[in-house]
């Protein structure tokens, strides 16, 4: 097709229509893959593997101890199992036997400790640690082979509980601290003081798609890795390290994930490495996919935390001083525990002004799976502490918790404990007051009081909680993104960027940004699978920053192309004596129109074709780095976050005093997403994050036994929220007038912040429990607040009369 035969007169009404049309950014549209999801046509990593005939399967041989020496390993019996192709052990690793993303402390296969006098036997560091992987013609063969491998161990006493790690000084790191003011002095002088300690549980990601990788080697010996990873670049790095090859020998592709939630930020790497080693050694296509139990046993989770705190406050409930010691359970290796802990320290304030504060953090080393990123990334654990403190202050003083929370909210101009100004702090109070009104908070308070007065065994509770969450990777260098936008001669577009799609709607937003960036309909834009050979050196799709970073990088590339095209269009649309300038041109809906004269119009496709013939480049790289962020970890001062996202939640629950079982009757959420790029996507993120947060705080309970074995390692023992937990009344609203200047299209990140709206459920449970027994006084409720925990909480109220 050439420019000359595409030329046809454009209906002026179409040009006028395009000028008046609404941009794609801001439109409520469904997920860009929704039709493929519902028909089963959407493919995930293991689907690709299964559709590729004759891929080999792998299955791990898992150690039955949390801490042990591996005395003896004999894989030969597996080799005689029909269908077994090979067994991988430590000696098959061509490069470095380590997949650690932060330190080289994560052996892919067990290895001996280093250092003089160290025992030469390989160490088992956590229960189910794979000592070998069996490669078979089928998964059945690999499983049978794995069962035939002989391994002998000498068990050693494991460190399992955080409190045991503290007692035995077993830490990965210590000494992280943020301090402001004079907390000791302020505590001493405070009219009221409280202190306490508690633990909060971890959380399994339970992405519906378990870890999966599919690897093959091309004719030049290069490695092609399909992987369910949130961080293709790191997967590329780690595969290259383990294979001992340069990074340019490895390409990682990520089509889509069946959920990530942080669980595939670093955790996919070992499985990609196993498949890669197997593919290299067998010269076959190899898939690794975990079943649910293996996935839960072999991949890290949200960090459980222990918190010891002291708070000083006045009679109005104003917090004057806070001292907190946080200890996270890092598991056997460091992984992302350092930045997770950092974010917990940063978010110890949640949305409350802390005039005098010291918060210290350390990471315990235990013989458990290495804990990792999970939506909120330490933020929820930090905020758990302050929400617990707020409730205790209120109940100690006989005040309503929402009164104390409101009193302590950040006000305009105040700074955090690391002295970053809370820009738009006034949105917190606004969110509170708008939500109080829309949820009929006061009226329901009265109704609940009346209900509780006449109901001896069933009590209701209500709570209002805020969220303030900092957006940016706290590792500054991660705050960069690249893109590659390709315009083809027919005007159709391919967009590549460094972000990965895990259901959060990133690609839907990217498509809208690219479509508007070039002025074409979304149907003309294909967002391509994420590949490390399209955009290199990318950051993990994490920290809620996927759209902020990649969206800006895509917009940057589109702007470049558009500027080139605008110049050409201006000359094409100029008439003798009447110039058309590039800046009067509007790119919209597949047309390029002069805003001054709608008869000056050309289709995008025709313009592109002309540009090609004029030898104008039709592709561009884009780049973005977040400006104005810095942090000094020694001083504990700086601006680690580009901005804050805000939100507020009201939840109402009903508790059965006989059993501790409860239901959530109604939830109202109000959340700040700036100017939403994709409202349906954003509301989906808010509601989904809330549900996941409620799961963490209520029914999702990880139970390890005395031997360090995870007893809740499948769906029948680890209970995610189901439809039954979805409140019958569930209202979600986006905060109005919330434009975020300096962020792509004025939007805000949304992935993580609403997770912490779920504190309203826990606080409402406490509110209901407080109605059992004699009035007044604090509520002790373990976390997660399972039915059993709520029951014991009620019992402790009853016991005090």
């Amino acid at each position, binding site marked *: 097709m050439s420019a000359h035969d595409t030329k046809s007169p454009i209906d002026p009404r179409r040009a006028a229509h395009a000028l008046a049309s609404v941009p794609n950014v801001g439109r409520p549209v*469904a*997920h860009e893959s929704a*039709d*493929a*999801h*519902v*028909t*089963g*046509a959407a493919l*995930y990593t293991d*689907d690709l593997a*299964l*559709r590729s005939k004759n891929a080999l399967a792998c299955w791990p041989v898992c150690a039955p101890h949390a801490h042990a020496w591996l005395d003896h390993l004999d894989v030969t019996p597996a080799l005689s199992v*029909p269908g077994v192709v090979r067994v991988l052990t430590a000696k098959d690793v061509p490069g470095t036997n380590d997949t650690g993303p932060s330190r080289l402390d994560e052996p892919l296969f067990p290895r001996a400790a280093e250092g003089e006098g160290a025992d030469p036997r390989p160490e088992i560091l956590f229960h189910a640690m794979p000592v070998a992987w069996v490669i078979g013609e089928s998964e059945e063969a690999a499983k049978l082979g794995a069962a035939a491998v002989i391994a002998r161990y000498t068990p050693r006493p494991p460190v399992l509980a955080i409190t045991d790690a503290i007692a035995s000084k077993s830490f990965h790191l210590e000494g992280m601290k943020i301090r402001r003011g004079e907390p000791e002095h302020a505590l001493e002088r405070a009219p009221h003081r409280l202190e306490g300690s508690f633990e909060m549980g971890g959380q399994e990601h339970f*992405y*519906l*798609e378990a870890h999966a990788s599919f690897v093959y080697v091309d004719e030049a010996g290069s490695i092609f890795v399909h992987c369910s990873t949130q961080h293709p670049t790191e997967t590329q790095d780690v595969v290259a390290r383990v294979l001992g090859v340069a990074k340019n020998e490895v390409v990682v592709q990520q089509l*889509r*994930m*069946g*959920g990530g939630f942080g669980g595939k930020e670093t955790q996919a790497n070992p499985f990609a490495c196993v498949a890669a080693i197997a593919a290299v050694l067998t010269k076959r296509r190899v898939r690794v996919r975990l*079943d*649910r*139990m293996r996935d839960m046993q072999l991949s890290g989770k949200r960090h459980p935390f222990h918190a010891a705190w002291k708070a000083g406050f006045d009679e109005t409930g104003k917090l004057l001083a806070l001292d907190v010691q946080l200890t996270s359970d890092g598991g056997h290796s460091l992984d992302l525990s350092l930045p997770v802990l950092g974010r917990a320290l940063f978010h110890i304030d949640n949305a409350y002004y802390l005039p005098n504060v010291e918060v210290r953090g350390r990471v315990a080393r235990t013989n458990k799976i290495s804990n990792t990123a999970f939506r909120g990334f330490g933020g929820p654990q930090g905020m758990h502490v302050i929400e617990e403190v707020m409730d205790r202050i209120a109940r100690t003083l006989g005040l309503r918790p929402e009164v104390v929370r409101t009193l302590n909210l950040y006000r305009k101009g105040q700074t955090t404990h690391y002295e970053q100004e809370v820009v738009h702090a006034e949105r917190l109070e606004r969110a509170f007051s708008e939500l109080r009104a829309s949820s009929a908070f006061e009226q329901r308070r009265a109704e609940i009081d009346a209900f509780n007065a*006449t109901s001896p*065994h*069933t009590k209701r509770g209500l709570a209002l909680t805020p969220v303030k969450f900092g957006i940016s990777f706290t590792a500054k260098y991660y705050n960069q993104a690249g893109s590659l936008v390709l315009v083809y001669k027919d005007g159709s577009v391919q967009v590549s960027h460094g972000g990965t799609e895990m*259901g959060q*709607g990133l690609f839907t937003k990217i498509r809208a940004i690219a479509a508007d960036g070039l002025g074409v309909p979304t149907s003309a834009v294909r967002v391509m699978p994420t590949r490390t050979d399209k955009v290199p050196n990318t950051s993990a799709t994490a920290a809620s920053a996927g759209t902020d970073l990649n969206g800006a990088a895509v917009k940057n590339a589109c702007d470049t192309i558009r500027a080139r095209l605008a110049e050409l269009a201006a000359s094409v649309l100029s008439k003798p004596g009447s110039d058309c300038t590039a800046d009067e041109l509007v790119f919209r809906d597949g047309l390029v129109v002069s805003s001054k004269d709608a008869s000056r119009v050309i289709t995008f496709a025709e313009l592109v074709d002309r540009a090609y013939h004029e030898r104008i480049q039709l592709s561009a790289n884009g780049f973005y780095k977040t400006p104005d962020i810095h942090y000094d970890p020694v001083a504990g001062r700086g601006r680690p976050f580009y901005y804050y996202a805000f939100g507020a939640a009201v939840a109402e629950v009903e*508790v059965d005093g*006989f*059993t501790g*079982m409860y*239901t959530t009757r109604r939830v109202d959420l109000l959340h700040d997403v700036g100017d939403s790029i994709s409202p349906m996507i954003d*509301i*989906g993120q808010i*509601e*989904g*994050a*809330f*549900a996941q947060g409620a799961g963490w705080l209520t*029914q999702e*309970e990880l139970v390890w036994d005395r031997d360090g074995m995870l*007893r*809740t390692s*499948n*769906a*029948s*023992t680890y209970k*995610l929220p*189901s*439809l*039954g*937990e*979805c409140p019958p009344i*569930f209202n*979600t609203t986006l905060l109005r007038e919330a434009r975020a200047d300096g962020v792509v299209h004025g939007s805000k990140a949304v992935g993580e912040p609403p997770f912490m709206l779920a504190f309203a459920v826990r606080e409402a449970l406490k509110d209901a429990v407080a109605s059992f027994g004699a009035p007044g006084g604090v509520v002790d409720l373990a976390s997660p607040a399972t039915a*059993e925990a709520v*029951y*014991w909480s009620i019992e402790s109220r009853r016991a005090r009369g």
Partner: protein
Amino acid sequence: MSAITFELDGAPVRAENVDPNTTLLHWLRANAKTGTKEGCAEGECGACAIAWRANGPDGSARWEVVNSCLVLMPSVHGRELLTSEGLASRAEGTLHPVQRCLADGGGSQCGYCTPGFVVSLFGEMYRAREGAFDPESIAGNLCRCTGYRPIREAAEKLAVIRDKSRGAPDPFRDRLATPVAPLEASEHTITIGETTRSFARPSTLLDAVAILAREPSRTIVNGGTDVTVEVNQRHKRHDGYLSLEGVRELGQFEDRDDALVIGAGISLAQIEERLHVHAHGPTALGRALPMLGELLPLFSSRLIRTRATFGGNLGTASPIGDGPPALLALDAELVLASHDANTNAITRRIVPLSTYFLGYRKTARAPHELIEAVRIPKPYASLQRFYKVSKRRLDDISSVAGAFAIDRGPDGRVTRARLAFGGVAAVPLRLTEIEQRLLGTRLAASEIEPLAIAASQLVTPIDDHRASARYRKAMVVSLLRKLAFDTTSPSASHGVSP
């Protein structure tokens, strides 16, 4: 060697060389039908849901939705299956209304659970004839992304669409015009190395007991929702299966003068339909047996209940199964059938359920015997209560379940009591001593209190990941207190489960 033949998304399939330990889910995915997903492989998440044509209690056909991870391949022989991949009209390139609603309403995020939700909603669209969609239809599907609100709203919208489109051409509805022919007897055998594996699916009870008499070591599949979990989770591989899904006699459901007889092979979902009609409430039978009406919605998800049977639940004899306490409280009896080689006939014996459980997963059933039916004798107790304590309200395994059946005289005093608990000992437990002490009381809180304390001293629960032993003991007390409160207090609240 035998082939398994069935229809999949409108096309005939002939599956050869299939190990009977292969699940339908595994087979589908291994054969590039990857639209059906594995999320848990134990029937908890519903990502693998598929529909097949089956007859309802009234004998008319419907699209029944089951977890394909809990179906062994030979079970699909002769069936007609649909997956999410077969619902969109290929000819017109249009999505099925279920797909359209879910997609447009924000019902999918990562999309991995979505095909399962699609199939569950599809089944409901053709099952219910009117009224709102029963939320139970998607209670066995887990979604980790959405928080369920948009999926629930899609379901609500679909009910309206279904009602509006009544009479419009619909190939899936047309297909339901003819009832499904009974499953034919079949035996699937395969030789792997030196092992021969067999899956027998007889169609008569006589054949079933005869097979079992010859080969008592065969693993009995009566719904299979437990057996297949062992296959998937613990990699159990059985050489011989005896599947009861085709045995006509086990599908009986008879309301006799002296007892209700429930065939051991009838699915819990179909029992439930006889007790309760969605949007209409309990039937006469449901009002007479509220114990079962309260039990069944709490007994796993409908996806499981569509396959699970009382025969299976009592056969595996799990101490935390929810069927046994309810049936114990109802004084149920089991009809055990076996083969008489001399006459080539069925012999039967009746075993009271109260003497059936001998120890942890040990029962009075001999290896050559099959559970034919559960008999619930009449008259039923006038007061029946089933309480379940679990971490998650729906679709969870009990920490403790309590089932209480009580009769009172005209003076309000207890004349007969049955108290049964699950989850508090190695076997489902009846507390006969407490039952005796309950006689003559009016179930007043003050009367119950010492009995509740005494009851908690009779149980021997364990600590595990579901609950502590201490909590389980406390629940024995609590559920009896709750019984007293619910039956004597006019203001008793039913707002919160259990």
